[in-house]
């Protein structure tokens, strides 16, 4: 396992080569070289995975002492266990596919090499995030991926709206990061270490529900809400769609935004010890899932729908975490990485084909023009809606089943989220692919299916989104093979939760059937509305009413933040500049200056030259020293 450090090293090399030599290497070479680096990381991640499956034990690898000053000892260390390994597979696997896709998607862009260097930098930081053996190393990756997200959202930086979106993402993430930092301070001050193994074993000695553990986990969770776009820090993610679509697929769907889920799962012991925080996690997750799902129902930008969908699905994962269904949440994280990346890439393929058109009202009839995209999008849509035997069905069901054990009411809300999911995704699906093309004639004639290097990753992801769950679920004997694999990671927490009281098979099947039937009905209604009745969403100028108006306008969250936070701070800044600086501080100083001047005016040298006086003052002061001695 001592080869794990190669996993971040390859993309780092890719970043440096593409970044430093960006002027000299042709686009073709960069694209394949940089993708190759990610492939190498993927291969090593696979080796690590195989070792762990064959009974390898988790390892803590200390590379060097990073920050070392007195009592403060913070090593640069990696920790590789089943959870890390799963995340590595997703990051490097999906990452590699999206790199390949980007070669086609970004073809001909003037910043091609810059794009690929940022992408590899992202993979570097993301692997550091999951490999880290203590919270500080995780934080390096945590902030690093935020930087890459910033750089890639504002990739087309001529457009200031994109730049604003990028900045907003960085700032909102930083608000969360302060929570993360404070949590680290608390942990270090209590345990004198940030290393996972040390922290968790010491935490187990503390009585559960203590104020300390609750504050730590809440602070960490603030970090998670920033990175994973949960309430209240959710508004950056829809804006982040300004970035090129492969970025949305990789960073803002499959990997970075799931870092919050990973972090909570990694800290499962701490969270299990803090029941209050767990409740907060459930409520936040559920509220976010519902709000984002509702907004997604009324958006007309295909990427915005997918962005809100991502927020909503992440909310669902947090709900799972909150009820202690850690491995179910990780399962959903995995399947979501497949089908959401797939949906984004398919959306990118449409946008590519339509010459940057993103409004679903201007699409339609694409199933004939872009048959492959149609097929893979359908796969993704079925998977996210939870139609068996596609992946989304199993992972969502697993979360819902555990939620049901916790509280049937919550389960009801969870089903509502699933219903919304099917509604918004099929709304997009029918509007984009069925009926007649509603856009402009010039674009219509130019529509083409994406090139092979874009189709290949989509087809691979479609297979994963469709069938990945089947081998996992094959030996359905209470728990699936993924949760068996992850069992060692969550062992202590499961013990604390007195798990074992899983839902018996029969009620579970009934729940599944109920959800399945409801979703089938939703899809049917969606079909009849958008295909049979040819319903097209109204133009933006049409005024909307009630809840629809609220949801269409994203519940005015941005506007509220602007009014409550941004404006007041700007006012305050102006006030300081115009009033307190010149009128208060300068006046005080002028007063002191006058006192000094009056004292100095006796010397009368001031009028002739300041420098002279200054030198004089210095000489005088030295003479005073001498005089003092004589006088004594």
């Amino acid at each position, binding site marked *: 396992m001592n080869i794990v450090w190669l996993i971040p090293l390859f993309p780092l090399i890719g970043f440096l080569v593409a970044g430093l030599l960006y002027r000299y290497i042709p686009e073709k070479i960069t694209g394949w070289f940089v993708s190759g680096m990610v492939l190498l990381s993927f291969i090593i991640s696979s080796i690590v995975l195989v070792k762990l499956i064959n009974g390898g034990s988790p390892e803590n690898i200390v590379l060097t002492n990073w920050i*070392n000053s007195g009592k403060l000892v913070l090593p640069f260390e990696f920790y590789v266990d089943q959870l890390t390994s799963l995340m590595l597979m997703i990051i490097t696997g999906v990452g590699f596919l999206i790199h390949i896709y980007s070669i086609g998607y970004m073809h001909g862009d003037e910043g091609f090499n810059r794009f690929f260097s940022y992408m590899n930098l992202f993979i570097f930081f993301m692997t550091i995030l999951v490999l880290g053996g203590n919270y500080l190393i995780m934080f390096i990756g945590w902030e*690093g991926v935020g930087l890459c997200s910033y750089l890639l959202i504002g990739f087309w*930086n001529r457009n200031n709206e994109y730049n604003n979106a990028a*900045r907003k993402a960085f700032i909102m993430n930083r608000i969360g990061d302060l929570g993360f930092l*404070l949590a680290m*301070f*608390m942990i270090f001050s209590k345990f004198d270490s940030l290393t996972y193994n040390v922290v968790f074993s010491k935490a187990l000695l503390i009585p559960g529900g203590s104020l300390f553990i609750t504050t730590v986990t809440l602070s960490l969770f603030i970090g998670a809400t920033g990175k994973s776009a949960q309430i209240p820090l959710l508004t950056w993610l829809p804006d982040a769609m300004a970035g090129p679509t492969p970025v949305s697929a990789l960073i803002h769907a499959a990997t970075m935004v799931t870092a919050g889920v990973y972090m909570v799962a990694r800290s499962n012991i701490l969270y299990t010890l803090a029941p209050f925080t767990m409740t907060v996690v459930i409520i936040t997750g559920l509220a976010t899932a519902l709000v984002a799902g509702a907004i997604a129902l009324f958006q007309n930008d295909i990427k915005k729908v997918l962005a809100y969908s991502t927020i909503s699905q992440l909310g669902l994962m947090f709900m799972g975490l909150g009820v202690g269904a850690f491995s179910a949440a990780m399962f959903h994280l995995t399947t979501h990485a497949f089908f959401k990346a797939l949906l984004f890439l398919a959306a990118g393929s449409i946008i590519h084909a339509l010459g940057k058109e993103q409004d679903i009202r201007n699409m339609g009839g694409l199933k004939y023009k872009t048959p492959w995209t149609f097929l893979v999008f359908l796969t993704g849509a079925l998977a996210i809606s939870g139609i068996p035997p596609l992946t989304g069905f199993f992972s969502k069901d697993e979360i819902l089943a555990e939620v049901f054990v916790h509280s049937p009411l919550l389960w009801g809300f969870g089903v509502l989220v699933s219903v919304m999911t099917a509604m918004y995704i099929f709304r997009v699906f029918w509007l984009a692919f069925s009926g007649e093309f509603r856009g402009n004639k010039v674009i219509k004639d130019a529509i083409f299916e994406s090139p092979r290097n874009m189709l290949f990753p989509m087809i691979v992801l479609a297979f994963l989104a469709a069938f990945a769950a089947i081998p996992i679920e094959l030996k359905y004997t209470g728990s699936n093979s993924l949760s068996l694999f992850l069992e060692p990671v969550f062992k202590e927490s499961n013990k604390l939760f007195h798990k074992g009281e899983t839902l018996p098979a029969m009620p579970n099947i009934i729940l599944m059937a109920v959800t399945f039937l409801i979703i089938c009905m939703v899809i049917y209604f969606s079909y009849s509305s958008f295909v049979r009745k040819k319903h097209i969403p109204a133009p933006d100028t049409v005024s909307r009413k009630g809840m629809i108006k609220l949801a269409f306008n994203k519940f005015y969250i941005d506007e509220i933040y602007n009014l409550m936070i941004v404006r007041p701070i700007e006012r305050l800044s102006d006030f300081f500049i115009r009033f307190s600086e010149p009128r208060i501080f300068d006046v005080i100083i002028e007063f*002191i200056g006058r006192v*000094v001047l009056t004292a100095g005016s006796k010397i009368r040298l001031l009028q002739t030259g300041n*420098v002279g006086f200054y030198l004089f003052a210095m000489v005088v002061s030295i003479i005073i020293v001498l005089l003092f001695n004589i006088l004594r």
Partner: protein
Amino acid sequence: MITLLLILFPLVASALVMFSGRDSNVRRNALIASLAEFFLSLASLFGFQNTGIPEHSFSFPWITNLGISFHFAMDGLSLLLVLLTTFLIPVIILASSGCKSKRLNIFFGLILIMEASFIGVFTAQDGFIFYIFWELALIPAYFITALWGGADRIKITFKFFIYTLTGSLLMLAALIYLYFQTPNPHSSEFTELFKVGISGNAQILVFLAFFIAFAIKIPIIPFHTWQPDTYTTAPAAGSMILAGIMLKMGIYGLIRLLLPICYPLMSEIAVPLIGIVIAGLIYASIIAFRQEDLKRFTAYVSIAHVGLISAGVLSLNEIALNGAVFQMIAHGINIVGLFIVIEIIESKFGIRYMNNLGGISRVLPSLSIFLMILVLGSVALPLTNGFIGEFMILLGLFQVKPLLALFAGTTIIFGVVYMLRMFQKVMYGSLPENLKSRNVKMFKEETAALIPLVILVILMGCYPKPFLDLAGPSIKTIQDLVLTIPK
């Protein structure tokens, strides 16, 4: 001996540069001299034991009957700051390539005098010698601003002068008082001054005198209003020296003099005092949100950053103190880098107002990469130099009082708000029409000045060990010293 050489060499070089006439080689000569000085300071690392006790000691009796002697020596803290000085001076000279002012021989000569005085301040082991070099550093700074400065320079220099004079006189008064408290025969050696152990009202007055003197230099709000004006009006090299090195004298003074002398009082008032400093840093950050002039902007950014460093020092916590020293170096590098970028932009486009700039990343892509790295260092992104220092300071503050870390921690949010706004306005978007006609490209000297800075931003962030190790034992010694003071 090497310590004395480090002080004398720039003085001699300065005289040679000043009298070498006004030929075009002045800058090159000054550069060579400052580089030689840098290697000389590196040489002092050889045989350096770093035990926490001053080494490379040199002592020469000056006014024997007063017990004042030219006593210089370096512990790790001193050496680190000497290295910062000798590293930054050549970079600053190199970056003044666009400088076409008159009387360059005097200009660079003054810079070298300043270098000598800084090293004097950082290595002095005697209170009055410390004071003399402290004053000596101000004279060239004053001339540089008054003679080579921009608009309103006389008025602003006067303000600067009043401030620093007030501070200096207060410090002198405190030193004289302390001097007379030492046992007969009096001595102004640091070690003697530290043994005095003042208390009661005297301690409060001495504390105030020193604190205000250092607070003006750093500057800590509300003693700051000289600084944005001075940074804005001073020539680029002047602002770089003021921000990069000279303000470190104030923080160094806090650590070297104030902590050992006034520890009992400081430990009592630490929390409210840090509270005020943190309020000041938030205040400066909020002002930085809306600044348009790049130099004035950088001045407020600097106030915010050194506010955090001062908070770290005042916390008297070992982790925070080590972090503060590390951050002093990081701040020196980052702020000089920022000023160099501003100077390059101003010299090529003739403007330094953010609103009138934009799209520079298209014409000068390498400059945008340099600025991005400096911005990342300033916002304390992990693996850059700013992170190590800020992390340690905030952690130390947390251990003193968690609420302090919460408020000081807002700096990581504010930092991205104002830095990214600046970056976006300057580098992104599209180039304004009136600037398009200019054919701009980076000069070799400019690139050469920025490269070592950005390398250090990343190197110090990835491998902070040598820097932490160098200062560590000295800080331990100071901590041990102050802990023996009876309360």
